[in-house]
């Protein structure tokens, strides 16, 4: 008998039923059900996520429409659909397959159901964050899960507040989601790592182009010169102080229950006032969560949570994990993605984007965990 991802058709039906239940739950909260295509134009996703998405999504093509991607998640099509004429505020829910290319781990599913909820509402972001978190928590209440939360906005605000050049801040912010590159940049900007000898030679050269042969390619001499100018300016920029590096490291090491994390962040904000507004947002969210009945005294908050695997989130982030099954990916996850809506909005005449927060649940994992309980 054919199986679905190595599972029986009975299991498959159970997962389908669970997905319907979850979607009905989101609908009951006022979300409008929407359908999205499975094949998405590859160009949009490539533009947003870069080449890495090819390692995570299946790409196919035809001679008419060119490259298409099998939807790796619903966020992009839902945002696009909304921008195409949806009124605000809006709440959407959806249920369907997503496809993830797997190249390392054969056990990981390359096709599974996702049920999600997205809120486009700028009136009270803290309340919207709390609403999505609670909706997802209720949807997964049948199994014991540990919730982890964080806020990428803290680190972004910290970088904005560094006493250094705009170019360095932009470089650091570009790599917020790549912790290794972020650290190596910070090491370089703070003088902790040595300047490469070739870099020093380039900057010292009277004529950097003295030994250049043929000039080929689309990247022009002017662009190379502009970068050398930028490197010169950077070399003349004073190092980021040890004190500020220590503050960034202090932020990245915040890992407490929410009330204690807030205390830590407020302490850090005394020395790094640029994060004050972001910390205030965490506090407002904390109150909104408490108002919805979340026991914030036991809710974990990690300032670095979601940094390496939740690229498009730029504020609140959360995940729900089965602690007894560390081999499983998160059962549910989500967060705020205002920047992504601005990027998608550029092409749709909405360059300001829409404040947006959402979360997804994997009914397949829920059924698997319920079966084991």
């Amino acid at each position, binding site marked *: 008998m054919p199986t679905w991802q190595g599972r029986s058709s009975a299991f498959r039906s159970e997962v389908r039923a669970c997905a319907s239940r979850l979607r009905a739950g989101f609908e009951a909260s006022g979300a409008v059900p929407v359908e999205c295509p499975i094949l998405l134009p590859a160009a949009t996703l490539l533009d947003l996520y*870069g080449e*890495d998405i090819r390692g995570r999504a299946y790409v196919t093509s035809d001679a008419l429409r060119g490259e298409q991607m099998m939807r790796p998640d619903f966020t992009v099509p839902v945002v696009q659909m909304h921008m195409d004429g949806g009124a605000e505020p809006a709440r959407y829910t959806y249920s369907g397959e997503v496809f993830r290319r797997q190249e390392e781990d054969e056990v990981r599913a390359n096709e599974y159901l996702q049920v999600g909820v997205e809120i486009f509402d700028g009136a009270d972001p803290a309340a919207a964050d709390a609403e999505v978190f609670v909706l997802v928590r209720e949807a997964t209440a049948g199994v014991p899960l540990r919730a982890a939360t964080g806020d990428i906005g803290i680190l972004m605000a910290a970088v904005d507040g560094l006493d250094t050049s705009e170019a360095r801040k932009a470089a650091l912010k*570009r790599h917020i989601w790549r912790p290794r590159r972020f650290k190596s940049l910070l090491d370089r900007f703070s003088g902790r790592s040595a300047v490469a000898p070739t870099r020093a030679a380039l900057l010292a050269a009277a004529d950097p*182009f003295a030994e250049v*042969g*043929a000039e080929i390619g689309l*990247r022009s001499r002017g662009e190379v010169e502009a970068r*050398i100018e930028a490197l010169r300016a950077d070399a003349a920029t004073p190092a980021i102080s040890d004190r500020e590096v220590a503050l960034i490291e202090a932020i990245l090491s915040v890992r407490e229950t929410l009330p204690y994390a807030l205390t830590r962040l407020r302490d850090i904000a005394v020395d790094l006032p640029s994060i004050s507004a972001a910390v205030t947002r965490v506090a407002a969210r904390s109150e909104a969560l408490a108002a919805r009945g979340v026991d914030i005294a036991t809710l974990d908050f990690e300032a670095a949570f979601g940094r390496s695997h939740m690229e498009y989130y730029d504020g609140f982030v959360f995940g729900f994990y089965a602690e007894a099954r560390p081999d499983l990916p998160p059962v549910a996850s989500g967060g705020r993605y205002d920047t992504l809506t601005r990027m998608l909005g550029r092409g749709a005449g909405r360059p300001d984007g829409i404040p947006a927060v959402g979360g997804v649940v994997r009914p397949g994992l829920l059924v698997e965990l319920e079966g084991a309980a």
Partner: protein
Amino acid sequence: MTVKLGVPSKGRLMDKTFEWFGERGITLGRSGSEREYAGRVDGIDGVELVMLSAAEIPRDLAAGRIHLGVTGTDLIREKLANWDMRVEPLAELGFGHADLIIAVPGCWVDVDTLDDLDAAAAAFRQAHGFRLRIATKYHRLVRDFLRDHGVADYQLVDSQGATEGTVKNETAEAIADITSTGETLRANHLKIMADGLILKSQATLYRSRAAELSDSDRSVLAELVQRLGVD
């Protein structure tokens, strides 16, 4: 049943493979005409020679259609996910040396390291409205390498041949390709990045972890491995 040995079906790689086995008392050769892709094995019984394109040998090893195969490290790593769970390298054969590297135009005097490439890619995207293009046929290896090193704002464009020419033709800004001496790169005004070595490759004898073996196959394989001195 026989133990199936897959070797490259043409060119220098085939000649050198035949030579390597010949030096160890196993004579490999084509049967029949020059054009026929069937082989013969002298010096040991129970081994069948299968002539294949070097690029197909990884897949056939992974599927267990051949027990042993000679191909480049680069092809194994590019084509097989979790390659070390699918094949076991028995011996590096000492030829077919090639490095998979990233090269940029020599006139990019500001780009020497991956750090530079990342910064140049960011500026390029700003200036041109699309991501800096790197031409390659080694998509997986290059993407994994660049992701591990935190390089962003690039895109890979497929190039199955004459990759060094893509920059001059302005279909790519940089390339990732195999090179042995670097001469073709220099002739095309390209330079290798200081930390742009992705993989050092050479012709290697692999054993499939998936191919089924009868008891007699097992003893033939043991004898072959011992005769080749690679156990």
